């Protein structure tokens, strides 16, 4: 196995350009090292941890910029994230054990592109973008287009994630991230649901509703039809229940050792409803009525 510790992004992407599919990027290594032990070693390992200045959380022009090498634990303990992106904070907080959170990076979570990746549904709902470096230059890839399938992103074999840019949601908006797993945070999510609700001026109607679903399709997805059913409407109980059913119908989960597809759909419905209820309660201080 060839092994490199590039010191700059330029050096890293030129290695990826040279080795193509034969190269594997390693950041925290919590996914890659397990694969290397139990599947196979890559022909070339590109360890990006020695590239300086890639672990940071910065507020800039209405966005939070998070370096790809930022550990999940840094996100969890960041007061800016907790204040301004509570949805992302919640997913970092529910992410595996402390030991894993100290090692795993957010860039690795995104590039792994696991449908159950903890931070993905929240980032999708927050309409984040991935800033990726290729040998020809940089591209900003919206999360809504980034994921192609399990383990597959627009970065391909030659792109390197440098930064995640998260626009700060409107101050009146409130959200929730709900994870269903057997062993709580330690476990991979059976279903993860991220909800973000922005009320209109009067606080009666939902100006904007975003619903992200994790672990129930080949990629994390937005439940677009459910969102549409709620947008601009007064949040009444029957409508919220209907939207939750629509969200479940938009998911296409698989059956595996963790649970059956039918069970997952049922959990999507329940968590979406709860997420909407919680978010609305946080927005208005009241329960949804009617």
């Amino acid at each position, binding site marked *: *196995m*060839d*092994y490199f*510790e590039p010191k700059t992004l330029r050096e890293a992407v030129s290695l990826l350009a040279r080795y193509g599919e034969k190269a594997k990027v*390693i950041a925290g*290594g*919590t996914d890659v*090292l*397990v694969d*290397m*032990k*139990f599947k196979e*070693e890559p022909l070339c*390992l590109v*360890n990006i*941890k020695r590239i300086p200045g890639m672990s940071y959380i910065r507020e800039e022009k209405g966005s939070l910029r998070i370096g790809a090498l930022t550990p999940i*634990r840094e996100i969890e303990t960041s007061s800016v994230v907790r204040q301004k992106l509570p949805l992302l904070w919640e997913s970092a907080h529910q992410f*595996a*054990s*402390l*030991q*894993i959170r*100290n*090692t795993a990076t957010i860039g690795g979570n995104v590039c792994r592109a696991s449908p159950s990746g903890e931070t993905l549904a929240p980032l999708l709902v927050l309409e984040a973008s991935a800033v990726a470096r290729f040998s020809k230059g940089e591209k900003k890839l919206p999360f809504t287009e980034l994921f192609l399938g399990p383990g597959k992103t627009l970065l391909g074999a030659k792109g390197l994630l440098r930064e995640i840019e998260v626009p700060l949601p409107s101050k009146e908006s409130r959200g929730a991230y709900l994870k269903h797993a057997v062993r*709580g*945070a*330690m476990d991979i999510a059976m279903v993860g649901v991220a909800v973000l609700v922005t009320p209109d001026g009067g606080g009666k109607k939902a100006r904007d509703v975003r619903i992200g679903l994790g672990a129930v399709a080949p990629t994390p997805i937005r439940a677009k039809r459910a969102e549409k059913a709620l947008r601009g409407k007064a949040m009444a109980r029957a409508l919220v229940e209907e939207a939750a059913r629509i969200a479940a119908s938009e998911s296409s989960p698989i059956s595996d050792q963790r649970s059956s597809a039918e069970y997952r759909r049922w959990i999507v419905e329940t968590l979406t409803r709860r997420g909407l209820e919680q978010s609305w309660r946080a927005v208005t201080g009241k329960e949804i009525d009617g």
Partner: protein
Amino acid sequence: MSLNIRLVVNGTRHRAKIEPSLSLLDFLRDTLGYKGAKICCNTGECGACTVLFNGKPVNSCVVLAADAAGAEIVTVEGLAEGGRLHPVQQAFIDTAAVQCGYCIPGFIISVKALLDRTKNPTPEEIEEAVSGNICRCTGYTKIIDAIQIAARQLQGSTGLTSKARS
């Protein structure tokens, strides 16, 4: 292909030639002989291999040894001072929070890290701190007791025992 690394383990400097795919756990146990970090699941699930990496608890089985170049590592062997056990170790013995013992070095390191972060942990903080450590024997109750006793012990002392090293 191999590479040369230098690092500090329990205050002792080491240099070694390693394979780049080697895990920090295999490196500590097999190359340097620190057998206190235990190998169990080898996939980051159980916490038996927990060590401090620049003061923070990590599962050494899912960390590259290469990433430890220039770092300071602490294993359970590094906690006793001059033949005196660390208060966390002593509390585990005093409460008999140990049965087969295999998981214990990992717990001790997680708890040491917790008490380095806060002298007065809440029950939630205690639970969070050891949620990545699995014990198949004790049922955890006595482990939680031990953590509370160790915390009280460290509050009572000058705090030097744990602070001096981190």
